[in-house]
């Protein structure tokens, strides 16, 4: 090999150094976009990153929010496994999901298909009415539901009693009926939202496909199950995944509708409600943080599973 002359070495050095100087130049040149995105990252540093780390630290201490913190190691997490309410809240997340999501998703899809088919008059009116509950605050809606479902005076039981001779249903007093009532409220609020997502999805499906199926002799039910549903799979999956996350993060609906919040006998308590109660009801900041982390891990695993599924479907 020939020895490389010094001057050429210097040039080579210069060339290899160029990218880093170029990077700095590019960063200076791009100061505007950095400035524009800075608010998010600064805000995240304080309210996101710092909080997430501090919450992790808190999960190893016992602390009422004032005075010295007491380091307790893994005691909070050990307690978690024996905490019947917390375990119940996790079970409720799944239970509620299976109770309302299949019905709500199916209804949302059917309604979207009906409204998209131009077969009915008053498309806009129906869409508006079905979507309307979504804009209403849960405090108003929840208390209205409480009145409607009142065991003794509520119009629902009066109606069922008068027309079907059904004895008064303990809508909010019984463990299972309370769950049913909660699901009714959730469906009332979220059906229109999911329908709008489905409608947007349907608009991406060319109409010729279902028409072709009809011409080939498929009836509406067949074209729904064999053409629409397979094509809508990514959108349906998206809506189901949102609902799964939503079931664990339920707060407003439970907090307003059930008495006491999450009751009766913790039948409707969700992880979020339980964490809120421990943190702001009992001031157990350390324990609430440990709960939040356990909840985070479970949600994270669910997210990973979901991402895997999504990846496969989108291809």
């Amino acid at each position, binding site marked *: 090999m020939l020895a490389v002359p010094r001057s050429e070495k210097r040039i080579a050095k210069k060339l290899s150094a160029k990218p880093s100087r170029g990077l700095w130049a590019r960063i200076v040149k791009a100061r505007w*976009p950095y400035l524009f995105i800075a608010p998010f990252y600064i805000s995240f540093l304080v309210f996101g990153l710092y909080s997430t780390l501090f919450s992790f630290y808190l999960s190893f201490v016992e602390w009422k929010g004032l005075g010295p913190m007491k380091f307790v190691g893994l005691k909070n997490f050990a307690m978690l496994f024996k905490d019947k309410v917390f375990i119940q809240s996790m079970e409720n997340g799944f239970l509620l999901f299976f109770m309302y999501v299949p019905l709500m998703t199916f209804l949302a899809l*059917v309604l979207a298909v009906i409204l998209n088919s131009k077969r009915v008059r008053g498309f806009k009116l129906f869409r508006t009415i079905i979507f309307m509950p979504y804009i209403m605050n849960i405090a108003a809606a929840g208390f209205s539901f409480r009145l409607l479902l009142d065991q003794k005076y509520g119009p629902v039981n009066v109606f069922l009693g008068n027309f079907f001779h059904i004895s008064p249903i303990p809508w909010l007093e019984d463990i299972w009926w309370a769950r049913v009532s909660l699901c009714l409220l959730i469906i009332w609020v979220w059906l229109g939202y999911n329908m709008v997502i489905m409608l947007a999805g349907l608009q991406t499906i060319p109409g010729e496909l279902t028409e072709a199926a009809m011409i080939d002799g498929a009836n509406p039910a067949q074209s729904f199950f064999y053409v629409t549903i397979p094509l809508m799979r990514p959108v349906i999956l998206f809506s189901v995944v949102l609902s799964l996350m939503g079931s664990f993060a339920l707060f407003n609906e439970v907090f307003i509708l059930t008495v006491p919040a999450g009751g009766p006998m913790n039948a409707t308590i969700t992880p979020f409600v339980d964490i809120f109660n421990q943190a702001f009801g009992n001031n157990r900041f350390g324990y609430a943080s440990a709960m939040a982390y356990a909840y985070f891990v479970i949600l994270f695993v669910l997210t990973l599973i979901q991402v895997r599924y999504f990846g496969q479907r989108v291809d």
Partner: protein
Amino acid sequence: MFYYRVSRWAGNALIYALLIAICIFMLFPFLWMIITSLKYADEIFHIPMILIPAHPDLHAYTYIIKQYHIFNITWNTFMIAIIGTGLSLFFCSLGGYAFAKFKFPGQGPLFSFLLGTMVIPAAVTLVPVFLIMRDLKWIDTILPLVIPGAANAFGIFFMRQYISTISDDIMDAARMDGAGEFTIYWRIIVPIIAPGLTSLGLIFFMGGWNAILGPLIYLKTQSHFTLPLIIRSMTSTVGRSMFDNQMAASVISIIPLLIIFLIFQRRLMEGIAAGAVKG
């Protein structure tokens, strides 16, 4: 042919029956809220049930205006919702614009990171953020309700998607004319993305107006309460006797949003669909 026509007629009848049943389910809680707000307590809890009150009047409304200063409460709610929406729209469109229309070192990783932050559930940061607010002496002010969410990942993502669809030509032309980068954003981009800002703004405004968790944690004095909080406070101890007042407050709380919704519903639905399908 006859069979086809009958089955089609039956199918239509079934479809309308389903739609009407669902509409009744959707509308009845609103209706019952209004009816209850016009009743007196002894009519609310009466056997047999009173469907239409004999002497409907606005006693509950005058009561909550006087005793609960419901118009001040409505004003509080409005201020929290509008300030939060304004700040969020500004910071999110600015960030979305940067990610959509600029090339800069670290752009990809920074954006992935931004999306990644959405995985952190609110439950994890709930306690530390409360402690920060306590140390800042921001408890019982609107600041904890509008500052932490001002520049949020969802909004930036939403605006990035929206701004990517507009053409670069106008911006390049403005740059040739020597316009500053912020001027380009404020004078050129903002007017173009007005529909997207409306969609996102409606989502934010609705969130602020209807929020329960934040106000519950941070607002302590009754005169600082929002509508959902005041509605909730009307049952805590007195029990059932307050339902007429509570439903009157509920009616007042939904009227402004209902009007906004009926005017802008197309934009709101577009926003929800865009946030969902593209995400």
